[in-house]
């Protein structure tokens, strides 16, 4: 791509903000960059798109309508208060904030500015673009020792139509010993063809717990790039599930930094790439301090004409002793013409560690299929059951409603023959 054309695209897509520190900042990624080896970012910047000044239409119904949750709805990067369900400020304990960044940054300017614009904006081009053009998103601040997990918080981001790019920014700050459960949900209109360029920066302080579930269920032909940077302090715990139930072109970049000792990070993901679809999950866990644990499980399916990428990296820093880090990635190619690229990586600079990764790519076990058929299941029914079983391992531990929704969407889409 020519530099002038790219600059022109940036001018539009950033809403005139341009790209901060474009000289020293990250370069536009190409497949020559190791981290973008299998991902063609050029496909996104080929079409014109721009942020909109006023939000489009929110979908008629809310995701998981039966779930009793605080709800924050954002459309095209703008807060939609009419569709949101928020606590009255007076009902909440001192220091708690559940609301849009636009308001949170006024009421708690220090927290909101301190933890925003994290790691990726300095290393990744799209994150830098996100940072310079950041729009509204959720701001969740939980003060020390407060348990907020009795009622989950559902953050919904919707892209309403064609030609639109949104740059939602979300900030989570879970202070010492506090607990929260957060669901992040993205959707797009069937006519959407732009880009969701989302960022989430989370800080989980000492002994705090964050349960994060991220569902991506987008109907349009828009692209999606998410940068999730999570910093964990000593004794903190993260349980995270990412499910790409439906997406046309998507890249998730997750970085978990265990900046304190005794961190626990469990994170799972599942995804499926059907015809003409591209799904890319990059994960990176940094064990910067001793006695941490991480367990990761990602499962992917690819159908004819679909392309899926998994790149998982575990880094154990010097002196980060007694780390236990496990990673597993399983992929199934369901049909001819599908492709999976997997790159499970270990970078270990300390010796007293137990680290392993396993990666398998193949198809359903013929013996299991046969067993099911000999018990009367038709071949499609047997494949369906095995698909469900395959996904369920990665969804284990997520809310039942989330599991049910993701499974239903994926099974309908896959419809194995």
């Amino acid at each position, binding site marked *: 791509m020519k530099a002038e054309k790219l600059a022109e695209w940036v001018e539009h897509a950033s809403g005139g903000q341009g790209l901060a520190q474009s000289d020293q900042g990250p370069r536009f990624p190409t497949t020559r960059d190791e981290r973008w080896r299998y991902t063609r970012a050029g496909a996104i910047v080929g079409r014109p798109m721009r942020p909109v000044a006023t939000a489009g239409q929110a979908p008629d119904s809310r995701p998981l309508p039966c779930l009793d949750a605080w709800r924050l709805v954002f459309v095209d990067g703008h807060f939609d208060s009419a569709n949101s369900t928020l606590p009255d400020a007076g009902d909440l304990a001192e220091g708690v904030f559940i609301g849009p960044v636009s308001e949170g940054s006024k009421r708690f300017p220090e927290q909101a500015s301190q933890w925003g614009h994290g790691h990726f904006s300095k290393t990744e081009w799209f994150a830098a673009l996100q940072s310079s053009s950041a729009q509204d998103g959720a701001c969740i601040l939980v003060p020390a020792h407060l348990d907020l997990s009795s009622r989950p918080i559902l953050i919904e981001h919707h892209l309403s139509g064609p030609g639109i790019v949104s740059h939602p920014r979300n900030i989570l700050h879970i202070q010492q010993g506090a607990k929260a459960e957060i669901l992040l949900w993205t959707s797009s209109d069937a006519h959407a063809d732009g880009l969701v360029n989302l960022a989430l920066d989370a800080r989980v302080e000492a002994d705090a717990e964050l349960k994060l579930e991220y569902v991506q269920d987008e109907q349009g032909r828009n692209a999606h790039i998410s940068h999730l940077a999570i910093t964990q302090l000593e004794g903190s715990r993260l349980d995270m599930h990412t499910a790409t139930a439906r997406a046309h072109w998507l890249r998730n970049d997750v970085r978990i930094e265990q900046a304190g000792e005794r961190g626990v990070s469990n994170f799972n993901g599942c995804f499926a790439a059907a015809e003409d679809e591209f799904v890319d999950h990059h994960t990176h866990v940094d064990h910067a301090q001793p006695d941490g644990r991480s367990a990761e499980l990602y499962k992917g399916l690819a159908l004819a004409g679909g392309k899926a990428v998994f790149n998982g990296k575990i880094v154990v820093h010097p002196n980060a002793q007694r780390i236990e880090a496990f990673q597993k990635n399983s992929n199934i190619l369901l049909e001819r013409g599908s492709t999976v690229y997997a790159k499970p990586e270990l970078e270990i600079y300390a010796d007293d560690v137990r680290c392993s990764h396993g990666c398998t790519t193949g198809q359903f076990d013929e013996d299991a299929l046969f067993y*099911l058929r000999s018990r009367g299941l038709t071949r499609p029914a047997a494949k369906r059951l095995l698909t469900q079983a395959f996904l369920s*391992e990665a969804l284990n531990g997520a809310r039942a409603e989330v599991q049910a929704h993701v499974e239903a969407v994926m099974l309908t889409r896959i419809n194995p023959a």
Partner: protein
Amino acid sequence: MLKIKNLHARVEGQEILCGLSLEMGSGEVHAIMGPNGSGKSTLASILAGRDTYEITEGSIEFMGVDLLALDATERAVAGVFIAFQYPVEIPGVSNMNFLRTSINSIRDQKGEEPMPAKDFLAKVKQCAKLVELDGKLRDRSVNEGFSGGEKKRNEVFQLAMLEPLLAVLDETDSGLDIDALRIVSSGVNALRSAERSFLIITHYQRLLDHIVPDRVHVLAGGRIVRSGDKSLALELEDKGYDWINEELAQ
């Protein structure tokens, strides 16, 4: 109900069955015994409909239909059940989900309504009791982490749930201790009826102490070389298989 005529089968070019014939009536219990490598498990696999075998000659008729023309699913729907020697583990699929899917799939293919949940649960309870399968095993993934005995009990539990017309027990006694053997065989005995036939494939006579067969066949060199009543099994136990081999050699 089952007529096997002059069955020839090969695996990777090697002839394993060469002219096996066998006839069973409804409600009968037949045992097939034979030394290792005689083709016992091949027969079970062929009945189940595995496609790793090539049938070069012969026929299998089940309830008047050509069994070989049916695929594995259709055979199960028709009422053929195989209790496998090595039941496969299926992580992530719970035993209950598996069975419900199985039963309703068979009913659906027969044009019947799905089994009401209440009936299903009652049936599970009743069948589990039969093989002393406790609740924990029922909720676990299919065969995952089961001991050898638990897997076999689970097979008989499924047999009870699916109510087939023909049950083939492939070396169900292998790897069982004496208690498990008793549990499994009393389960099978309880399931005997005038409509249901059993084909018991085994290396040892001891299972036949518990499940008494109507007929005993000796399989050697890919053929039935001798048939008799239950006393044949005792004779085999007594003399071993060498005796058969020697007779064959003459």
